[in-house]
């Protein structure tokens, strides 16, 4: 297993959750893969690219079949598709590895220009997942139920989580020994993830890219090291572009520097269409 690679140009996305009936990420994700192929850039899917907890077998098969041809065409052009395993797809690790075009790894160290970049999904730094994996899966399944009721219910739960996280970060900040780490600048992001990224960065990394938390943003870890989180594909998907060591967090849709024209809300489709998929 090769976990250290040199890639001068790489696009990193995370938490696409293919297979999840309500994410509707298949079409925009396929367009994103076409975008990468057009520009001759390799792609890294940083965990939870496939969702086996909140999905149906039919939907998963449909989504994977559509992606398969895109992955193959990227490979034919000599580009690589790296797949970093996350918590929603951990059980599929060997299946994905045997699938062919994907290079499945537990994490990826990328050398680009003079920079050394760590790409990792980040579920190992989620205290709930590490201490009580079963409870975590139960909560995830409940989240799936909320999604099935309506995406707004799921979003409301996510919004509810933000002030709780902010309160937790504030409390933790009072007793934090490492005062050099700045307050968390990413709304909703738990400070524990930045601390873990800081611990990894001590091993000579210039940037750490995580996913998992669904909170896209970037932060300074001190000593010139940057932290990125690529968010998720339920709303406003973002990706990190690595170009000869330079790194930028960009929206997939809608803005001047976006990868694809059009808007995410149109790409995502209406609730009525989603409902037809479920029923």
């Amino acid at each position: 297993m090769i976990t250290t690679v040199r890639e001068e140009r790489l696009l990193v996305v995370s938490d696409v959750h293919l297979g999840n009936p309500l994410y509707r990420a298949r079409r925009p994700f396929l367009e994103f893969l076409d975008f990468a192929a057009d520009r001759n850039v390799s792609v890294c899917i940083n965990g939870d690219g496939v969702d086996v907890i909140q999905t149906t077998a039919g939907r998963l098969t449909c989504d994977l079949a559509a992606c398969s041809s895109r992955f193959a065409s990227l490979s034919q052009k000599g580009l690589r598709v790296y797949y970093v395993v996350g918590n929603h797809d951990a059980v599929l690790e060997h299946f994905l590895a045997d699938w062919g075009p994907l290079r499945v790894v537990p994490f990826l160290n990328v050398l680009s220009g003079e920079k050394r970049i760590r790409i990792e999904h980040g579920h190992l730094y989620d205290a709930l997942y590490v201490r009580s994996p079963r409870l975590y899966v139960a909560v995830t399944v409940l989240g799936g139920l909320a999604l099935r009721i309506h995406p707004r219910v799921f979003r409301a739960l996510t919004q509810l989580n933000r002030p709780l996280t902010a309160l937790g970060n504030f409390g933790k900040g009072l007793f934090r020994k490492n005062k050099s780490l700045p307050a968390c600048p990413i709304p909703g992001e738990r400070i524990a993830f930045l601390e873990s990224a800081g611990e990894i960065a001590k091993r000579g990394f210039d940037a750490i890219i995580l996913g998992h938390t669904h909170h896209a943003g970037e932060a300074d870890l001190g000593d010139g090291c940057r932290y990125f989180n690529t968010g998720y594909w339920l709303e406003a998907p973002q990706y990190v572009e690595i170009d000869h060591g330079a790194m930028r967090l960009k929206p997939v849709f809608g803005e001047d520097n976006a990868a694809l024209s059009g808007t995410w809300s149109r790409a995502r489709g209406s609730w009525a269409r989603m409902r037809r998929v479920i029923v």
Partner: protein
Amino acid sequence: MSGIFDREESFVDGEIIVREGDISREMFILQRGSVVVTKNVDGREVTLAVLGRGSFFGEMSLLESLPRNATVRACGDTRVLILEPGSLLLKIRRDPTFAFEMLQHMSQRIRDLDERLVALLGQRPAAAADERRSRVVLSSTSEHTDGESPVHSPGAGV
């Protein structure tokens, strides 16, 4: 970014970080710059490896409580993270993929040494010489005390 059980230290070009035969137990992770690993063989200095950013060395002295097996010199301005004895498990607890990378490097080193052993046995068909050589190689395998990145130089130990 130093913690309670680890510290960062800088070295200038040519400065010795670890000296062969020293009794010290720290482990080092290269944050910046590079190092040259050398060993004294029959009175002459042999370069075993050049290690780059992210590589580590000194872990075998930490794990086995044996004297240093080689000398490590800074190559250019170099900064290392030093893990004190007793802090390795804490580091692994806080940064679990570090353990994976350590095992990966050690596995690669064993594979490399196996290949060298096979090549050596192939070159020397005489049974007596084979036996003597393999004893030497196996002995040196067990004495290796440090690691390195496979990107730079697989199979060399400190």
